[in-house]
């Protein structure tokens, strides 16, 4: 059997950029819905607010928990089932909190995207952002 012919493939952005290097900005694909720039700006700002909120939560979690261990040395001597509380704060407690932060962010971001799509006038069935 004849082996399939090998084709040189680059990422879509690279391909476009290579083809039109002399005209920067031309490599951008057109904006999909919401097509109007105002809508897209609002969507961007909404996502940025969400990202900022999640990052603040993240900073509060990791810096706050390590800060707690630093300012409350007594946590080293308070035990839960014999394990010092400060060890649990560093070794176990952060993980469920981090997961919760991420899940919450995904839910809020997706809800915001759904709302934007609805405003952009796109039929809900056409929801696919894969390109």
């Amino acid at each position, binding site marked *: 059997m004849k082996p*399939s012919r*090998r084709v*040189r*493939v*680059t*990422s*879509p*952005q*690279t391909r476009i*950029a290579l083809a039109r290097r002399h005209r*920067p*900005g031309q*490599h*951008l*694909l057109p*904006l*999909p*819905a*919401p097509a109007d*720039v105002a809508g*897209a*700006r609002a*969507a*961007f700002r909404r*996502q940025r607010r969400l*990202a900022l909120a*999640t*990052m603040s939560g*993240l900073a509060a*979690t*990791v810096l706050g*928990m*390590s*800060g707690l*261990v*630093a300012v409350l*040395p007594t946590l*080293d001597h308070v*035990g839960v089932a*014999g394990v*010092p509380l*400060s*060890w649990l704060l*560093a*070794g176990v407690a*952060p*993980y469920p909190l*981090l*997961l919760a932060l991420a899940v919450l*962010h*995904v839910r809020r*971001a*997706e809800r915001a*995207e759904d709302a*934007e*799509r609805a405003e*952009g006038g796109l039929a809900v069935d056409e929801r696919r*952002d*894969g*390109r």
Partner: protein
Amino acid sequence: MTGIVAIGSVLAASLLIGIYGVRAARSTSDFLIASRKVSPRWNAMAIAGEYLSAASVLGLAGLVLKNGLGTLWYAVGFTAGYVAVVALVAGPMRRSGAFTVPDFAEYRLGSPRLRKLSGCIVLLIMLLYLVPQFKGAGLVLNLVSGTPYWVGVLLAGLVVSFSIVAGGMRSATYVQGFHYLVKLAFLAVPAVYLLVHAGADARGEVLEPDRATEFRARTTVEFTIDTRLEVTEPTTVERAPERGEPGEPDRLASGTHDIASGEELTFPAGAPVPEPTGVPQLGGEQWSRPLLDIENSGHPLLGTWSTLLALTLGAMGLPHVLMRFHTSPTARTARRVATGVIALLGVFYLFPAIYGLLGRVFTPQLVLNDATDSVTVLLPAQVVPGALGSVLTALVAAGAFGAFLSTSSGLLLALAGGLSHDLFSGSVPRLRVAVVVGTTVAVLIALPAFRVDINVLVGWAFAVAASTFCPLLVLGIWWRRLTLTGATVGLAIGAATSTGAVALSTVTTLDPGLLTLLLAQPAAWTVPLAFATMIGISLLGTEPDWAEHALLRLHAP
């Protein structure tokens, strides 16, 4: 022997899964991003499998043993990094259509030169990250089979480059997913077993760090490096000038003692473990507080925060992490996959600390010899003597080897991408050559790096990523006014300061203090500096008129 069999089976299974993937690797798209035909579950497992490197499997337990509970924050930082990825980069990066960070740099700022600069930084980060992986592989093979360290490193290089050259990302994805399971099972099951089997007495000792650490049994330590020991209580030891020679009783008075490489000391059971200088006393106050007092600088909270900053923000800048999101079909799945990774990492990271904590009780001699990276592999035989112990050792060793295999495959792919996709134009034969070149360089650097702690190098890679690609991506994705000049200068300054600081801290010996801390873990100042540079210089210029379009495109659902 069991160890070789176990590692052999993991290798064989990986090769089989890899060969299954060979059929698919026909184009650059297959090679780098698996043509997006991987299910989200496998993808999350593969990402976790790739991310849990030798640093996590071997290094974390070793760090807990050597530097104490503060090193638990390393694992927290590694996981928190994925929250930042979910919140800031996963979705927009997937929408940008860029495979790699340099690709993204060109998309957002439209400059092939910036792409080349980013490509060079990718190479730097990947090498810093690859070298400790090869060190881990050489170490594990050395421990389970006694082969010289360099044989293990060379063998590992051959295996990894072969499987990548053949299969690319598609095969790597399945292999790495398989490796997550191997790592979790082979680390978690022995950990629980050891914890149960160690007995109430040893568990009590684990939880009572205030008690000075003592040798549980008569222990012979063969010193392979010159060491300065601080002895707190006079101890009678048997001292032999060289291995195999009869030891003479010698009384070590309290104070410092210099032990030359090659000497052999035998400590009686119950003798307190002496401290090598520069390492916190095992089980002492500093050791058991969960804060990272880097280089004994006396600023534990600043050290902890600087490390957390480097790891949390560094994760999003790691080229092999980013490339992964393009194996998802849509931006939404990319975000969800990243969330799945957090769950998988959280489960895994509960276990390395167990090895470190048990290691303090059962194998404290590793600290004397600066060989704490091997605690995970050596511990089972100490807790459970006999055949079962060697089976457990074999499992752990195979898990560690799996860690090495999957991480280094991912790293090599990203390295190959950096070499050929970003610096030259990409095609599959060139990618394959790039993989071989990358492996060769990493192996050559790993050969003399036997004494460097795995996590020192990995932490360095994270600090560089946090000071370069993190500001580039965050500002590129969320700030319209970023300009080409701002990004370029910021990248250059971030790379130079973070690389230079850690390099300086490894070659100089200064008195411990704020300066040593800021050199050893520079993220606390290099990350803000890189951000400030990019923002400041961008504000001086004006962005091109298509910048807003490029930005909005990243967030359009």
